[in-house]
């Protein structure tokens, strides 16, 4: 069968799954998962086939390109309006293929996991309907060949995120978190929409590939503005400072949602967007510096907050922020391949960690506070082992996945001359290992701190939940080695070379990269980052305890208290998330509310007042004039007579005399 003809089914199937489940899901009750899960399974099979063809280079060359293998399909013309033509079409190149691997694989595993995780929820069918709608939107986003279609998908994933964060909408905090996510995302989306408009005004087309090729013909300031506006959209969706505040609150949603949307796929859309438009950024180098600065600042900010949070999901949420910051920092310094590499590995191990945290939360009866956990490693061994793998992976311990991608980011930033990015990223690497093993220590090691009756009922999750964990643990171990080896000429850089070739040529002017030196600078960097990761990990062990085989350390809460008392400012800042929520509350709710109230007053009293006054005068005049309409013929006749006499008299007086 022709694979190309199957491409549209990647989006049709989840959409059909959504429509069917939405229509008949309520009647299917506990069986409602069949249609959505099977739809995603078929999508996964098709996607893997396409990915294989594209990445091995057996796919045909894309039209107008000598190096890029991939597929391009035109579906239909959406808006034919003179010069303004929007085609709905899909392009699969290496970049889309990389995203497809993450989206469909994690999407499938999260769907399967949800069968078990959501099994007692009254909104079972609604959950799966939304999940399929999300898969449709996300696939449309990575496949779209046109900025406008991409923007539609961009808004659709935002909508799904809103619906799923607020899935338990009777809970006030969930409804508020959903609203917060939606509104904060809108701020970025306005920028993205303006960027798209500017692209159309200056280039006259919205086809992504055409825009990228013609970006060089633009004025430098125009390119810079476009790049910054696109990045504004990416900042909203990928929760970068200062639009980062929505992601931690988004943890109000069900845990599979946090894993799929708010860790592994949707939040990567921003990274995908900037990577997709890389030549635009290459023409605007100052925009790249902005990206790097915001990325690395978000990385250290979020990592510092993650160190003291007590909600297991919030630690992971801040960790996601921090890792997304790494990706943007990598993009900003020009290590684009490293950014996508980290996107892929992070998608897998963070998805794993979130699903694992869901399993933990289930085991301790919907408790999310780590202060009421501890010592769970023997009770829930599969969750424990898989989460340990995920934690080691994100901490950057070789040879797990996170080590390769993070090391590439740090190494590239130093070699490309961004020493400050490397230095901050280096610290963040240590913090990452620390907060992850704080989480592990508080959750799995030491003694249980919650109520006794819960301890007795702690149990491992059903296989439908643990098997996805195991399946995600495998790429968390192997993916880094598969994609990142051989060092210096990794597989992923071979794959993505055609995608970034144009931008790289603009950015570096075709300068040869220095050869990879395992026994030189690169080797030193590897040793350095492994050392800092190990340091963070050992500190966490000494403070929060560890029990891995013969490696045993007790937790030492008194030492933790002593340390926090020694740096009270940093402790309070971290605990209160550097007061960003309070600052925004002050800026937008208190001060903004006052401004809004003043504007409302002006609108009500001046604008509406004028309109109402006009109406009032008319009504009063009518009421007055009504008096002379008596209904008596003779009054009217008198009026006619008087009028006639006045006219005749004025004629005689004025015209004659």
């Amino acid at each position, binding site marked *: 069968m022709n694979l190309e003809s199957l491409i549209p089914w990647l989006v049709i199937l989840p959409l059909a799954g959504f429509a069917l489940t939405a229509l008949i899901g309520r009647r299917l009750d506990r069986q409602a998962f069949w249609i959505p899960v099977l739809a995603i399974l078929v999508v996964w099979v098709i996607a893997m086939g396409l990915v294989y063809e594209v990445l091995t280079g057996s796919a045909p060359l894309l039209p107008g390109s000598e190096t890029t293998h991939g597929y391009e399909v035109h579906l239909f013309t959406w808006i034919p309006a003179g010069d303004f033509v929007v085609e709905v079409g899909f392009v699969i190149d290496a970049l889309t293929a990389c995203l497809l691997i993450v989206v469909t694989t994690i999407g499938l595993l999260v769907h399967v996991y949800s069968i078990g995780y959501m099994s007692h929820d009254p909104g079972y069918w609604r959950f799966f309907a939304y999940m399929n709608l999300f898969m449709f939107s996300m696939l449309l986003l990575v496949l779209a060949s046109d900025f406008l279609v991409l923007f539609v998908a961009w808004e659709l994933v935002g909508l799904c995120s809103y619906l799923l964060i607020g899935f338990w909408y009777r809970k006030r905090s969930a409804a508020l978190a959903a609203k917060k996510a939606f509104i904060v995302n809108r701020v970025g989306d306005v920028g993205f929409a303006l960027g798209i408009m500017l692209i159309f005004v200056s280039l006259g087309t919205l086809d992504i590939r055409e825009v990228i090729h013609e970006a060089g013909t633009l004025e430098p300031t125009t390119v810079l503005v476009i790049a910054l506006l696109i990045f504004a959209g990416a900042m909203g969706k990928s929760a970068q400072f200062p639009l980062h505040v929505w992601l931690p609150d988004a943890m109000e949603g069900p845990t599979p949602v946090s894993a799929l949307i708010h860790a592994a796929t949707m939040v990567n859309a921003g990274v995908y967007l900037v990577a997709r438009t890389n030549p635009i950024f290459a023409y605007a180098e100052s925009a790249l510096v902005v990206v790097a600065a915001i990325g690395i600042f978000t990385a250290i900010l979020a990592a510092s907050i993650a160190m003291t949070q007590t909600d297991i999901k919030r630690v992971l949420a801040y960790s996601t922020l921090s890792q997304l910051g790494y990706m943007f920092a990598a993009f900003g310094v020009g290590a684009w391949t490293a950014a996508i590499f980290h996107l892929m590995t992070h998608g897998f191990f963070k998805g794993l960690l979130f699903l694992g945290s869901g399993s933990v939360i289930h085991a301790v009866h919907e408790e999310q506070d780590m202060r009421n956990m501890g010592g769970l490693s023997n009770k829930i061994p599969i969750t424990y082992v898989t989460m340990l793998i995920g934690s080691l992976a994100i901490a950057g311990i070789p040879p797990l996945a996170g080590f390769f991608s993070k090391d590439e980011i740090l190494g590239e930033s130093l070699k490309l001359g961004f020493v400050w990015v490397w230095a901050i990223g280096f610290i963040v690497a240590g913090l990452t290992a620390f907060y992850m093993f704080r989480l592990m220590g508080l959750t799995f090691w030491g003694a249980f701190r919650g109520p006794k009756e819960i301890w007795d009922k702690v149990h491992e999750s059903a296989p439908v939940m643990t098997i996805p964990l195991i399946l995600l643990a495998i790429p968390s171990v192997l993916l880094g080695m598969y994609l990142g080896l051989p060092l210096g000429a990794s597989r992923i850089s071979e794959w993505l070379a055609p995608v970034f070739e144009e931008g790289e040529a603009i950015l570096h002017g075709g300068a040869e990269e220095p050869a990879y030196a395992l026994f030189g600078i690169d080797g030193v960097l590897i040793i350095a980052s492994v050392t800092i990761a190990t340091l963070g990990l050992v500190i966490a062990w000494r403070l929060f305890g560890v029990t891995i085989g013969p490696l045993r350390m007790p937790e030492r809460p008194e030492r933790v208290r002593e340390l926090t008392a020694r740096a009270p400012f940093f402790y309070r800042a971290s605990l209160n998330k550097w007061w960003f929520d309070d600052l925004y509350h002050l800026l937008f709710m208190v001060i903004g509310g006052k401004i809004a109230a003043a504007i409302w007053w002006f609108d009500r009293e001046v604008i509406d007042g004028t309109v109402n006054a006009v109406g009032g005068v008319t009504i009063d005049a009518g009421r007055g004039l*009504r008096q002379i*309409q*008596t*209904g*008596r*013929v*003779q009054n009217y*006749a*008198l009026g006619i*007579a008087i009028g006639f006499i006045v006219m005749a008299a004025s004629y005689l007086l004025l015209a004659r005399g």
Partner: protein
Amino acid sequence: MSDSLDAYLVLAGILFAIGSFGFLARRNAISMLMSIELMLNAVNLSIVAFGAFIPGLGAQGSVIALMVMAVAAAEATVGLAIVIAIYRNKRTPLVDEYDSMRQ
């Protein structure tokens, strides 16, 4: 018969003034109709007088006067018919009771 046009016009003016006063002042519908007739006749008189005193008009003055009479007759018929119809409804000939068109 006077030789002066003015005399006829003054008489016509007086007749018209009496007619319009009657129309405005009388409350009885029949009286009002009669006042209208008076005004019409005043106009007719002035038309005939113009016809007689202005040579260029020939027979036109008389023809128009005849026309006005025909129309006045028709108008009186219709007017009386309306008054009778209203009278049957309202049981009064007084026009200030006929105010159902008011709002």
